[in-house]
């Protein structure tokens, strides 16, 4: 899941300053789950912004709230067409994809990010999320016992551990466990320690040129429901 965190309030205040009518738009999927941009956070941001204005005593902005199931799919964005009428700007509490999808769909509307999209990760407990995947496009988890060194090793090295771990923890971030020691332990349990003896060549970044696109469907010509060529 994508994990994000809400931007500092002063950043958001600065973004909306020139606008009169502002829509605060939540996302009902990833940012809801990571407590950054669901309905409750939208409401909280709304209260905080109103309070900021009341305290600053400057001209009252008109805020409204809405939350979509997902902001990263164009079909869901269609439900917003009426809601954004007369709105001067939108603060999206979705991940960067959602913000861009909005900007793409509503070409004349200023759209601002209300959260910093942080990483792909998981909750380790309530209110704590850890990064687990770098979306590198070249997954090696089959060799590393299901533990990603790209993400979880501070240095991202492919042939670890380095010489630095102290008592199983990383020398750079002493709070973090050394990914390569975790990998070793896990391979040991799986009886696959021979994988540790292998040399992993540097990653080939060539096939991961950005932006990436995945085409899942077969490249057929568009046809109507009866198989006729429509155009």
């Amino acid at each position, binding site marked *: 899941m994508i994990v994000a965190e809400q931007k500092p*309030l002063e950043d958001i205040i600065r973004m909306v300053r020139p606008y009169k009518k502002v829509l605060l738009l939540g996302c009902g999927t990833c940012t809801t789950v990571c407590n950054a941009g669901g309905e409750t956070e939208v409401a909280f941001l709304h209260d905080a912004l109103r309070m900021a204005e009341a305290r600053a005593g400057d001209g009252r902005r008109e805020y409204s709230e809405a939350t979509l199931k997902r902001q990263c799919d164009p079909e869901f964005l269609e439900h917003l067409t009426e809601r954004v009428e007369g709105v001067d700007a939108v603060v999206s509490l979705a991940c960067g994809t959602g913000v861009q999808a909005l900007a793409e769909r509503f070409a004349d509307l200023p759209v601002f990010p209300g959260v910093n999209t942080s990483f792909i990760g998981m909750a380790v407990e309530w209110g704590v999320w850890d990064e687990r995947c770098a979306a590198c496009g070249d997954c090696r988890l089959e060799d590393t016992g299901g533990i990603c060194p790209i993400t979880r090793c501070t240095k991202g090295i492919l042939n670890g551990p380095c010489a630095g771990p102290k008592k199983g923890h990383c020398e750079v971030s002493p709070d973090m466990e050394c990914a390569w020691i975790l990998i070793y332990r896990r391979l040991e349990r799986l009886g696959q320690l021979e994988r540790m003896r292998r040399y992993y060549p540097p990653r080939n970044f060539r096939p991961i040129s950005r932006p990436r696109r995945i085409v899942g469907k077969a490249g057929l010509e568009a046809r109507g429901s009866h198989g006729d060529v429509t155009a």
Partner: protein
Amino acid sequence: MNTVAVRARRTPLSEHTIMPPCQVACPLHMDIREYVDLAAQGRLMEAMQVIRSGNPFPSICAYICAHPCEEACRRGQVDKPVAIRALKRFALEFGGDRMIEVEAETTRSERVAVVGSGPAGLACAYYLRKLGYPVTVFEAHSEVGGMLRVGIPRYRLPREVLDVEITRLTKMGVEIRTGTRVVSLDLVFDLGYRAVFLTVGAHQSLRMGIEGEDGAGVVDGATLLRELNLGLTPALGERVAVVGGGNVAMDAARSAVRLGVPQVSVLYRRTRAEMPADPREVEQALEEGIEFQYLVAPVRVRTREGRPEVTCVRMELGEPDQSGRRRPVPIAGSEFTERYDTLVTAIGQAPQVPDDFHVRIGRGSTIQVDPVTLSTNRAGVFAGGDAVTGPSTVVEALAAGRTAAGRIDDYLNHRYPLAPSDSEEEWMGDLRPETVATIRTTGRLEPPVLSREERTAGFAPVELAYDCQTATNEARRCLRCGLGAAIVAPDRCASCLTCVRVCPYHVPYADAEGAIHIPFDQCQACGICVGECPAGVIALRKAGELGQVDEELDHVLGSATRVTSKPMIVGFCCQYGVYGTGTLAGLWRGLKAGVWIVPVRCVTKVETGHLLRAFEMGAEGVFVAGCGEQCARENTGHWMRQRVAKVKRVLAQLGLQPERLEAFMWGENTHDPTEVLDEFAARVGGFYLDSVLLQEVKR
């Protein structure tokens, strides 16, 4: 489907509560959960009103109800049931029940006669009066109340309590004719009554069926109690034995002690575990020095020198009988003989219905009625109470009276009787052992009782009322069954697992499809998940709970913003604990700051938005005061602190001192509310002064 939710922070949940087990078990289906909750907040007048709305004579029940609700109470699965009856008494006595007057208007011409002024008859009269019928109650004895008067001893039900309820009834316009024995129902109909409710009770003691039962010095329990309660002082002698193990036996034995009998024994043919009497009665009887002989049954009585000589046989317990209790079996050759001054038999009672009533009599001399309409074989004649059920409880009798009033109304309106209202409710199952393990045990707090000496010296009421603090703490033990959280908009639930993770009772769970469920019969209604749900789709199953804090806050801010002379401090105060019941408002009168209290039912109901709104509306300081370690729920203080910390971060970002917001939890950071709050007010006052000075300088 429209996926846009416009500022729907909480989808309102219409009244969708589930009837709690106590209410299901109560024959009157009183809203127990509600009045216990009100009592826990110290809102006694409201609690009293809730009680009154569900019971015609609540003050009587407050003393002597057999409380089937407590048997059903699920707190009993954790430690012990909530002391519901004692709390009812507390709420009535301190909620001003004595001042209540009930009014009724006569809107009907059909007169109804009630034969018997016991609880069933009086309840029927009460509800018929409320329906507008002229009602006459006929009572054979010289005093009103039936078993309440002649059966139950004064030390259990003070006569003033009974008199107040009866006075109320006569003020409603119920005509009561004492000393009037009805001998024929034809005569009653001839007098112009259109319907009759028969509640003659079960006053006839059962016979033991042994030799010498009618000899001198042998008396039955019902007769003894009747004589005593109608003002006679029976001479019982020095040694009294009471045969039986029910409440009448206890009443007779304990009355004997109060009459000054030095040696009172109870002979019971089974053991203490099988005794039908209220265990608390048995306990108190033991305290009063009554001797209990178990597994003993009299087989023969001989009169010697005018005193009964009782031969008993020892018993042992055999196979269970129809009642599920183990049948006592005599042990051959174990007979022994004792001499007493009086032998009281209290092995059960049955109704005695005059033959001239011409109503069909069934098993155990009881009147046969239709279970739904309570009608007998005679047109216009209805029956209820002990006369139909055999000896039962007061609350059963009241319920029968209420039902009868409804059915008589149907009959007189030529209306098809409405189906019984207690349709099959969704029954709440037991708490799971895992849930029980997470609920904090808090021992049941009993009301104080008179000392043994004070009790046995006379017929003073044994049980005293709670003091305020004890009652509040006892009421807070209620688990609020059936008010639990529910996911009101499953389509918007993101299955984020927040509720699963924050619940202190491990109630919510995700199924294999990823859908979240909150089993209603396990939820403790603490409200933590409601505030933490990032999608805002969880609500408690009680209208009024929703938006309660918003309303109170609006109300407070509405008044507070008009007062500009003092810096405004808003305090969200838990209503259940030390900060509740107006304690603070009193303490704060002398302060320089204007302190405005928003009453909340547990601090978990205060959400981050509420705190921000108070600041938005101009509060210089905001505090949340919770009952902390006194809380009946788990982790409430912890979650309050989480929210306070979050708002403090926002305050800092806006350039306000985070110290303007504080959470006070009783026992965690304070044992003296006044001290910490004074300190807080001084601090906020300082900030206020600074900001005022700053504005002056800017000018």
